[in-house]
């Protein structure tokens, strides 16, 4: 049970971890924006339904959501609707989109009315104002809370092992069957490097957005 052999098999697990991380981000970041629009909608029933939905998703443990998405269709139909991996992605995307939506909402509502009025005076359309004026300032303001969520997501990927996606923790856990505990502790190094890179990346983004002196 050499060090390299373990490292290689943990790296295989890390591949799954990265895949869950990347797919969740790519899908949840835009979906979160849609949900935040719905929760701020002037059409009140839509806003209320969205708020209840966000309450349910944020109020139930993510691990339970993963279990529900994978097993419940199987209980009803006799065979699972989605693969294990798809179930994990579905649960993660919906969960994280709800958290992101509240961050977006806070950011969007923090932009003063004057900015919209200035846009109208300049003859811009509603969507021009949103994407060209508001969103750019929102991005700068919400970067720190988003980076919090993104870093949490790195570690939440470990929940996928409840339906046996062999991510890095599960890859290490498999060595426990042979009496080896150290691979499990060794995974901490991988997480620390992963989060370290993200921290540097977000620091760089914040500097890049420095030109908005809002």
């Amino acid at each position, binding site marked *: *049970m050499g060090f390299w052999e373990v490292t290689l098999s943990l790296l295989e697990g890390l591949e799954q971890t990265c895949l869950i991380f990347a*797919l969740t981000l790519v*899908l949840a970041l*835009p*979906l979160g*924006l*849609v949900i935040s*629009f719905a929760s701020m909608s002037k059409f009140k029933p839509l806003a209320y339904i969205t708020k209840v939905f966000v309450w349910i998703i944020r109020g139930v443990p993510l691990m339970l959501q993963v*279990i529900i998405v*994978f*097993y*419940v*269709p*199987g*209980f009803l*139909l*006799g*065979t*699972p*609707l*989605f*693969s*294990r*991996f*798809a179930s994990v*992605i*579905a649960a993660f*995307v919906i969960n994280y989109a709800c958290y992101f939506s509240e961050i977006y909402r806070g950011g969007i509502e923090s932009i003063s009315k004057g900015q919209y009025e200035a846009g109208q005076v300049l003859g811009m359309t*509603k*969507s021009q104002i*949103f*994407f060209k004026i508001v969103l750019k300032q929102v991005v700068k303001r919400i970067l720190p809370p988003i980076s919090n969520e993104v870093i949490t997501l790195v570690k939440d990927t470990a929940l996928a*092992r*409840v*339906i*046996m996606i*062999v991510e890095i923790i*599960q890859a290490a*856990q*498999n060595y*426990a*069957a*042979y*009496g*080896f*505990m*150290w691979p499990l502790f060794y995974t901490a190094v991988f997480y620390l490097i992963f989060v370290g890179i993200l921290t540097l990346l977000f620091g760089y983004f914040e500097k890049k957005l420095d030109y908005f002196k809002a």
Partner: protein
Amino acid sequence: MKKFIALVLALLLCSVSLFACNKKDDTLVCGVTIIPGLNEKDADGNWTGFETEFAQEVGKILGMTVEFQEIDWGQKYNELNSGAIDCVWNGFTANSTDKDASGNDVKRSDLVDFSYGYMLNQQCVVVKKDNLADYTSEASLAGKTACVEGGSAGAAYVSGVTDEDNVKSTTSQINAFPEVKSGAVDFIVVDIILAQNMCGKGDYTDLAIVEAIELDSEIYAVGFKKGSELTAKVNEAIKELEANGKLMELAEKYGFENVLKVSETIE
């Protein structure tokens, strides 16, 4: 804005259809956990072990492709009932009980359909080597702290020999070993087939089986969803493999010839 929302929804729909699951009728998906000797992976990542080859031989007779899916042992009934796996073929003790939602004992044979039994197992007590001298009989377990797999045959046993407050449950037998090694508990009760493979190896060189305490024997069988038509087919195949000596051949290959025993009743 509308274009943006449409784009996001289209993206989500695409990803859902990409991942849709389609299971074939001619595959037998076996739910397993890694147990050295029974189900494990070799250096190339291929499944080996007694249970693995046994399942593959049965698959050959039935004309089915056998796949192995790692499961969380605590989710085995969910995995079966949702159809995510076809059977649990992984040292599944048939004549044991599990707790239901209100904490009452339920026979495992009431929860799933079992095939014929094929292997004898026993629970055993594992302690630190240094403390081995303190454990001479069942009476010496009284007042000691213990760790067992929740819902296992070992759990039923310890509740009779030591106080309930002294017993800690884990999600798998494998996770009980670090408990006793780290000194968190005094002893653990696990399958003897597993203990023989774990004690004295890797990080567990300081653990040993207490030979002085002998527990009742159990029998392993394959578990299917209630009402599954696979049970009868697999039973026939097991009989065939017993008759042509193939099963004994496999048991000898992995060192289980002394515990191999095909029996039509599992009680």
